């Protein structure tokens, strides 16, 4: 069999050659660049780009890396961040991840990022490498990664493709995250038909460091060395850039051969685990001036961002990069998204020590260049210059679009289609059936099928994890200081009203953090939307950003970073607008956390904090029972959320609350079901006699939490609520002797019956 072998050193195009051949046509359209973008590159360079430069601009100016459709909306963050909010922020938007001061000299960094499309194409590896990527972002801040969360969206639960995607995604997160030794402390699993073909996989990582150890991605200091370490660079994840290779190969490889390079990568969690430990030791030994992870856009991104954040230029000898494949071109090396790599800037006198640490951890390390006193990023390939560009033009001066924005014509009709007309259960029997049916519905049932695949114990610092409103981990073992985190978003609410819906996502994540007893501190977000070229989608987007920014201002907590994913759309069908909000909170002593399950104290009273109005727009009841989406989402009152949080935090500090669980999807009924099941303890509940029981049980009014207080604390706690002006109502008692949930005059449910309803759904769909 004769097989053409690629040349080991393919022809490469130098800057000199590009200068000499200004008219040569270039495949910029195939690389996703518009005519005017290509023209701009030519004007920046004063000549046509080389293949390698074209590859760099095309990836760096892609939607994914440049945020070209969303950047103009960032002003909302800025305009809504006060000095006071900024005060606790050690690093914010623009860095790899936001960093906040949590007291006692500790800084915590956290960020959420999407890996949606790869997870559809290859669920296991797509999700796994999504985890790998976000963890490297956290390391690049100089922090030790502490915990993971994952926010997931899938098509209809029973759809055939969901049965492929969900188990694969879950196994990928489990396989990678568990192998890294990071406890998974929370997240979401949500089903909706709009996510069919466009699942969302958003991974969040939280890390901690001493405040003085913060490492920002800077390449300062002429003569400092640029070091690449971690895995070898291969042809995986090159995607579109492989069109550039077609002309440089002979024989069979030319033309079609290289075009089908997979844009999916395979993760190597073991290499990443070792890389984490290696980086932490490098930080401890103070051997790093600047550091950057290699994620999207690979070396193109790392070198241009490091260089443009520093005060000089950078020279890189690209042929030194250790490769995994033969015959790679400079364009391919620069664009490869091979995983588990980092890039560091190191003082020459520290180089030996740096290499020694890498050797200890058996991490491959290569000096690939140095910081110069010029202003250019210059990349050579076997001695010839293939890239010579101003680094800021790649990293920070990409195109910015003011995409057309138009409130969809159908929005009015959608909002007018109120759920009030839907038939409601009448009588005790129908209410009883509805409680069980809701508890078993895919969006409300137990997530154990997913979360039991995640290690929540490793590192021994987890004090709250699923099932809980927020995850909580210890940061300082000596003092017990810890952080809590939650992610939330109800895309149905956002669809009905993007501004309010996004504030509801913020309110829920904020409330979930406070329900554990932690003080909310800062916000990250992952904005998953349809096509940026659809004016209706851009309207949703703009409303969402404004809603989040203004909501954060009202709560007094800053947005420290985030991520945008557009084009989650098949044909004309966009996903539900899904701005996932992550909130981080702090607790000075995690021993005072509030658990989710009742029954921890001998005698407990159940109190419902907040007020219940008749609010069913976008509710789980309308969705499960009627397949209906219309009307307006619940009202949001952030001042009330803040008050509620203050009361919960005070209750936790003074030991007045023995358990708490917030009310969200499915309303009070769902919260009661979960509270008794998690606590494995029965309860007797009495509804108010001045409001329709159906409304009391299933309305999704925001700003509500069910708390259990020891009988001895009841008076003190209710007086506190009254004094602060927080509405509360005595709703029932915990009954440790009983194994039933009794809702007086309506129904009694055995815990076994509830457990069966709540726990059987996902195993029934995806395997017992």
């Amino acid at each position, binding site marked *: 069999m004769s097989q053409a072998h690629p040349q080991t050193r393919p022809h490469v195009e130098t800057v000199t050659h590009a200068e000499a051949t200004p008219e040569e046509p270039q495949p910029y359209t195939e690389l996703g660049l518009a005519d005017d973008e290509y023209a701009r590159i030519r004007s920046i360079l004063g000549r046509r780009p080389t293949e390698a430069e074209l590859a760099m601009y095309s990836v760096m100016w892609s939607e994914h890396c440049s945020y070209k459709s969303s950047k103009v909306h960032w002003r909302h963050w800025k305009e809504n961040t006060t000095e006071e909010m900024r005060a606790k922020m050690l690093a914010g938007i623009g860095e790899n991840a936001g960093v906040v001061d949590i007291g006692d000299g500790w800084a915590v960094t956290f960020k959420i990022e999407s890996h949606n499309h790869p997870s559809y*194409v290859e669920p296991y590896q797509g999700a796994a490498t999504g985890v790998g990527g976000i963890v490297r972002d956290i390391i690049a801040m100089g922090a030790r990664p502490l915990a993971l969360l994952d926010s997931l969206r899938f098509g209809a639960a029973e759809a055939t493709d969901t049965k492929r995607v969900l188990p694969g995604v879950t196994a990928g997160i489990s396989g990678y995250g568990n192998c890294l030794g990071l406890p998974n402390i929370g997240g979401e699993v949500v089903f909706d038909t709009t996510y069919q073909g466009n699942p969302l996989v958003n991974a969040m990582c939280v890390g901690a460091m001493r405040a003085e150890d913060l490492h920002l991605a800077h390449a300062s200091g002429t003569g400092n060395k640029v070091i690449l370490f971690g895995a070898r660079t291969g042809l*995986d994840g090159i995607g579109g850039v492989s069109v550039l290779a077609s002309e440089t190969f002979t024989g069979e490889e030319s033309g079609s051969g290289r075009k089908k390079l*997979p844009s*999916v990568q*395979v*993760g*190597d969690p*073991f290499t990443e685990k070792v890389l984490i430990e290696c980086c932490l030791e490098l930080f401890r030994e103070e051997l790093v001036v600047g550091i950057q992870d290699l994620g999207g856009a690979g070396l193109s991104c790392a070198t241009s961002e490091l260089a443009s954040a520093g005060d000089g230029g950078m020279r890189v000898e690209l042929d030194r990069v250790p490769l995994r*494949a033969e015959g790679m071109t400079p364009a391919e090396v620069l664009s490869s998204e091979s*995983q588990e790599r980092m890039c560091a800037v190191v003082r020459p006198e520290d180089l030996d020590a740096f290499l020694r640490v890498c050797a200890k951890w058996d991490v491959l390390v290569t000096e690939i260049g140095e910081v110069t006193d010029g202003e250019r990023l210059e990349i050579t390939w076997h001695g010839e210059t293939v890239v010579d560009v101003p680094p800021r033009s790649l990293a920070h001066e990409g195109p910015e679009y003011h995409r057309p924005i138009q409130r969809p014509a159908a929005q009015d009709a959608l909002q007018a289609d109120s759920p009030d007309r839907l038939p409601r259960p009448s009588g005790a029997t129908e209410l009883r059936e509805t409680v069980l049916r809701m508890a078993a519905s895919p969006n409300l049932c137990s997530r154990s099928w997913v979360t039991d695949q995640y290690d929540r114990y490793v590192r021994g610092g987890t004090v709250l994890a699923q099932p809980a409103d927020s995850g909580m981990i210890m940061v300082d073992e000596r003092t017990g200081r810890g952080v809590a985190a939650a992610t939330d978003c109800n895309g149905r609410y956002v669809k009905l009203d993007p501004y309010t819906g996004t504030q509801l996502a913020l309110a829920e994540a904020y409330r979930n953090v406070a329900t554990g007893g932690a003080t909310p501190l800062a916000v990250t977000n992952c904005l998953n939307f349809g096509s940026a070229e659809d004016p209706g989608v851009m309207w949703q987007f703009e409303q969402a950003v404004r809603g989040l920014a203004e909501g954060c201002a009202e709560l007094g907590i800053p947005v420290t970073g985030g991520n945008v994913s557009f084009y989650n759309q098949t044909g004309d069908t966009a996903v539900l607008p899904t701005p996932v909000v992550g909130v981080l909170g702090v607790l000075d002593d995690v021993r005072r956390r509030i658990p989710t399950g009742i029954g921890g104290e001998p005698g407990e009273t159940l109190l419902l904090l907040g007020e219940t109005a008749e609010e069913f727009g976008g509710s789980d009841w309308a969705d499960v029972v009627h397949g209906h989406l219309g009307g307006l989402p619940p009202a949001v009152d952030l001042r009330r959320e803040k008050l509620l949080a203050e009361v919960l935090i005070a209750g936790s500090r003074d030991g007045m609350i023995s358990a708490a669980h917030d009310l969200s999807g499915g309303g009070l009924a769902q919260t009661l079901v979960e509270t008794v099941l998690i606590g494995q303890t029965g309860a007797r509940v009495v509804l108010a006699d001045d409001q329709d029981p159906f409304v009391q049980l299933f309305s999704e009014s925001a700003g509500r939490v069910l708390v259990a207080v020891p009988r001895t604390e009841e008076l003190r706690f209710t007086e506190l609520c009254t004094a602060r002006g927080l509405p509360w109502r005595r709703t029932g008692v915990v009954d440790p002797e009983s194994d039933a949930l009794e809702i007086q005059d309506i129904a009694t449910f055995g815990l076994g019956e509830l457990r069966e309803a709540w726990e059987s759904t996902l195993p029934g769909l995806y395997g017992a």
Partner: protein
Amino acid sequence: MARVVVDVMPKPEILDPQGQAVAGALPRLGFHGVRDVRQGKHFELDVDDSVDDDTLDKIAEGFLSNPVIEDFVVRRVDQ
């Protein structure tokens, strides 16, 4: 009844961490001269004679492997 073997391997340009781990460990165990190792999956299927090659290809391509990252080979073997 026929015995069919399907071998599924990571595509050449795709990272194969398992194979690399094996290759890296061999010299430490005192085995030298192994230049490269790739690890994949090996399936042995017992199929009715009615199952044709086309169906086997579909099973291998659509289910036993993910063509985005893996190649496969199907062969019938004598028992």
